[in-house]
C-alpha cells in the first residue's frame, strides 16, 4: 500500500451501519467529507435515508489496517490437517440439534 492514488477530493471515510434489528455494524460503503461531523451527515444522506440504520460509524479510511492478498496463505489457511480446530469435530448433544 505504499503507492496510494492521490485523491483530489476531500478525505475518504468508511461507513458502518447498524441495522434496526440490533445486529453488529456492517460496512456500507464510503463517503468524502472534510470533517467527521460532515462525514456522519453524508453517510446518513447517502446510506441511511430510508431507515436502514439505527446507528452510524464513520472511520477515516486511512485509519484502517487491512490484510493484503499476499496474506491469504498464512492468515486464512484453514489448517485442514488439524481437524480438531473445526467445530464439526464435536458431536452436538441431541438437545441442541436445532443448531
Amino acid at each position, binding site marked *: 500500500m505504499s503507492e496510494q492514488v492521490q485523491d483530489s477530493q476531500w478525505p475518504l471515510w468508511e461507513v458502518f451501519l447498524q441495522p434496526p434489528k440490533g445486529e453488529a455494524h456492517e460496512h456500507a460503503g464510503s463517503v*468524502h467529507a472534510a*470533517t467527521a461531523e*460532515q462525514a456522519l*451527515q453524508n453517510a446518513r*444522506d447517502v446510506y441511511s*435515508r430510508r431507515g436502514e440504520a439505527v446507528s452510524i460509524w464513520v472511520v477515516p479510511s486511512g485509519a484502517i489496517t487491512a490484510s493484503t492478498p499476499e496474506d491469504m496463505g498464512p492468515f486464512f489457511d484453514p489448517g485442514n490437517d488439524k481437524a480438531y480446530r473445526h467445530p464439526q469435530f464435536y458431536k452436538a448433544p441431541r438437545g441442541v440439534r436445532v443448531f
Partner: protein
Amino acid sequence: MSFLFPYLLRLADDRLVLGHRVSEWCGHGPILEEDIALANVALDLIGEATALYKLAGAAEGQGRNEDALAYFRDAVDFRNVLFVELPKGDFAVTIVRQLFFSVYSLLQMEALSKSTNAELAGVAAKTVKEARYHIRHSAQWVVTLGDGTDESHARAQRAVNDLWRYTGELFLADDVDREAAAAGVGIDPSTLADAWRTQVTEVLQRATLTVPTVAYMQRGGRDGKHTEHLGHMLDEMQIVARSHPGASW
C-alpha cells in the same frame, strides 16, 4: 374557519417554493455527497408541502388536491414569503437561506405540533424532525464556510447580508395568522422572532460572520406581491403539469 385555508396555504407555499429552489441543485452540487444531501432536503420540503396542500385543499372544500394547488395557480396566488423565492444563488446563499428557514420552521412547527387541529399537529410533528436535521446540516456548513478561507468567508457574509432584509417578513403577522392563533390552530409568527434571532446569531458568531443591521425589511409575499423571480420559477416548475393536465406517471 375561513382562516384555515389561507393559513395552511402559506405554510405549504413556503415549503414548496423553497423545496423547488433547493432541488435546482440536483446534479449541480459541489460534490456528490452534498448533491444527495441537498436533494434530500428538497424532497423533505416538497413532502411537507404536499401534506399541507392536502389539508389546505380539504379545508377549502372546492375539490382542489395538492397537484391543483401546486401546479395550477399563478404567482399572484402564491402566499410564500419573498425570502424563499429568491434564486438559489451560489452555494453560500443556498446554505445560509436553509439555516435561516430551518430555524424558523423548527420554531414554528414545534408550536404547531400542539395545534388544536390534529392533522396539522401531525404534519408539524414530522416536520420538526426534518427541520432539526436541516439545521444540523446547514449550520455545520455555515460554520465551515464562514470560518473557512477568505473566499468562503466573503461569500458567506455576502449571502447573510443579501438575505437579511428578507427575513423580517417571516415574522409579520396578519389577520389570518392572528385568527389562526386565537383559535389555537396556528401561531402568531411575531412570537418566534426573538428565539430565531438568538439561534441564528449563535451560529453566525461561531462562523465568525457579522449579523447585519438592516432598518428596512422587504415584504409582500403573503399578499401575493412577489419578486419577478417567482414567476420564472413557476414557469419551469409547472410547465409539465400544465402541458399534460391529468397525466400520471
